[in-house]
């Protein structure tokens, strides 16, 4: 029997029972639709996390003091004081793969403007920090190297702090606020950045020269972090290696000693978060995949009933010349047509529901080609796999008994 005739026979058989064929497809439609939609939502959230992190500067490198043993007592990294001006000098002198460098210290406290006050954090950094963190000014000017040298009492202010200290909408530029009993003149306003991926308000901040914070507020010579920018994203790893070696030399660590600092890149963070949302995608896909299998079992069930119900038809077909192989192929083709048609409708449903999610909930979604192709292949395989057993049963019927079947 030719392939064209085979498709013709299977199509006609399905046409005789349109509603049943559609109901059988429903499992596949829902299965494929949900695979497409789930993967699209998972991919979308992964992409949006990646975008947010890129916004923070993908070639940014941070150095933190690490926990270490000090006379047998383990000390938490944050309270361990290892990063000093000497490290900055060494890094600036030796590391070629970084373009910008900024030490960072921070102090929590109340910012006060007349009768209003607001608890916030003051970061003490160098002017390069704005570039490294991809921060920009909405208004005013940034402080300079000269301000760093003179420990000038100037600061940049974030939008959240403005909202709380200047609720009337007055221009904060040039105003004096107090932080830790020290009066600071506001010289610039940071462009709002909103919340980051961890739910932190990135606008609830004051930024001042690090020397000012170190000398006038903290009275400390240590840095809590060092921020650096690699020349580009590709040279990040090289920069990390160089920085690690430089800091080990600067800290006079012997070869058997562990690092007393950690060097992190955004890549690690991106990878971590991506793998989290990647795991979510896998879970959603598995759930959707299960529904696809259930759809397949639905096909098997209906094909099985169909074989029993159409025993007489099978007997007739055999008596007029259909071979076992022809009957097998007919039922297999019916199952595959059901599953593939269901797959096509399912892909469309997936697209539509993805669009609905994006439009109504505002979630970012990305329909990946691979999920469409994969669902399609799975559909065809499901049809063949679950259609084979009933089809084989049909093909092995004895024409004499099948003809007499009532």
């Amino acid at each position, binding site marked *: *029997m*030719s392939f*064209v*005739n085979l498709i*013709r*026979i299977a199509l*006609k058989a399905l*046409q*005789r029972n349109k509603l049943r064929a559609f109901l059988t497809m429903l499992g596949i439609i829902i299965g494929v639709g949900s695979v497409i939609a789930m993967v699209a939502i998972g991919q979308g959230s992964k992409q949006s996390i990646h975008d947010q992190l890129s916004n923070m500067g993908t070639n940014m490198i941070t150095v933190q003091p690490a926990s270490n043993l000090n006379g047998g007592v383990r000390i938490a990294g944050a309270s361990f004081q290892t990063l000093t001006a000497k490290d900055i000098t060494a890094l600036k002198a030796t590391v070629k793969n970084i373009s910008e460098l900024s030490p960072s210290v921070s102090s929590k406290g109340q910012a006060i403007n007349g009768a209003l006050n607001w608890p916030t954090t003051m970061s003490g950094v160098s002017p390069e920090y704005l570039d490294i963190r991809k921060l920009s000014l909405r208004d005013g000017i940034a402080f300079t190297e000269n301000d760093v040298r003179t420990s000038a009492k100037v600061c940049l202010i974030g939008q959240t702090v403005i909202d709380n200290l200047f609720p009337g909408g007055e221009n904060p530029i040039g105003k004096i606020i107090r932080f830790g009993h020290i009066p600071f003149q506001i010289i610039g306003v940071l462009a709002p950045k909103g919340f980051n991926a961890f739910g932190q308000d990135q606008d609830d901040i004051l930024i001042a020269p690090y020397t000012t914070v170190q000398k006038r507020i903290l009275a400390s010579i240590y840095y809590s972090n060092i921020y650096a920018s690699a020349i580009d994203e590709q040279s990040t790893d090289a920069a990390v290696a160089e920085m690690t070696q430089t800091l080990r030399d600067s800290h006079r660590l012997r070869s058997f000693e562990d690092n007393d600092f950690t060097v992190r890149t955004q890549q690690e963070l991106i990878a971590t978060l991506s793998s989290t949302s990647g795991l979510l995608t896998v879970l959603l896909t598995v759930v959707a995949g299960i529904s696809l299998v259930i759809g397949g079992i639905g096909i098997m069930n209906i094909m099985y009933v169909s074989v029993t119900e159409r025993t*007489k*038809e099978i*007997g*007739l*077909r*055999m*008596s*007029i*010349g*259909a*071979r*076992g*192989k*022809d009957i097998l192929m007919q039922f297999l083709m019916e199952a595959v047509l059901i599953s593939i048609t269901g797959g096509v409708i399912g892909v469309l449903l997936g697209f539509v529901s993805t669009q609905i999610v994006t439009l109504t909930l505002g979630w970012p979604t990305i329909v990946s080609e691979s999920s469409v192709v994969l669902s399609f292949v799975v559909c065809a395989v499901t049809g063949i796999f679950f259609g084979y057993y009933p089809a084989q049963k049909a093909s092995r019927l004895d*024409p*004499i008994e099948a*003809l007499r079947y009532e």
Partner: protein
Amino acid sequence: MSKKILEIKALKREFIMGSETVHALRGINFEVDAGEFVTIMGSSGSGKTTLLNILGCLDKPTIGNYFLDGVDIKSLSRDELAQLRNHKIGFVFQAYNLLPRTTALENVELPLLYNKEISAAERRERAIHALEAVKLADRHDHTPNQLSGGQQQRVAIARALVNEPVMILADEATGNLDSRTSYEIMALMQELNSKQGKTIVFVTHEPDIASFSSRTIQLRDGIIQKDSRNENIRSAKEVLENLPVTDDY
């Protein structure tokens, strides 16, 4: 001497039922020539159905030989038998066995779908011719539930004719029909036999039906009891004309 279509030699068919062996056919010999109209008669249990299955190449003899159009079916595989049925036999069943929700034309085309040498255009043309031969040219698009019993059986006969078989094998083809319609079907069969020279083997248990054929084979307990030429063939067409006109419908 005309060509032999069927040749049956010392044919036996036994079934094993548990520990018992049932002898359905106990040694049968007969031949059918091209253009004959043979009825096979017998009461139930006479081996009629078993013989029919073997004649239709749906079953094989246990012992003995069956040549259909010169081919010994004993050596053929399941698939080869299917192909033989497709090319050489036209079945007409008691229950018509048309595909539901399928037009008359598509039902008639069905056997040709399993013959890959025939193109779609030729298939259609031959199906239309076959429907014309059974006088249903105007019912192409009717599905079985839109046709009367007699019309359905005529579609089934068209389906049996469409592959141009060497033999039409009818199994109680008039069993589900009233006598008037039965005579119509028999008239059609006689016409196909006489005008187109079709060989017809008609299995029935009604002596009335047998009287329209040229030869009757009587089966009893698995052997041929009587094999006689019918000297006085009735014409179904005349019987039909002489039937009183009923108006009780």
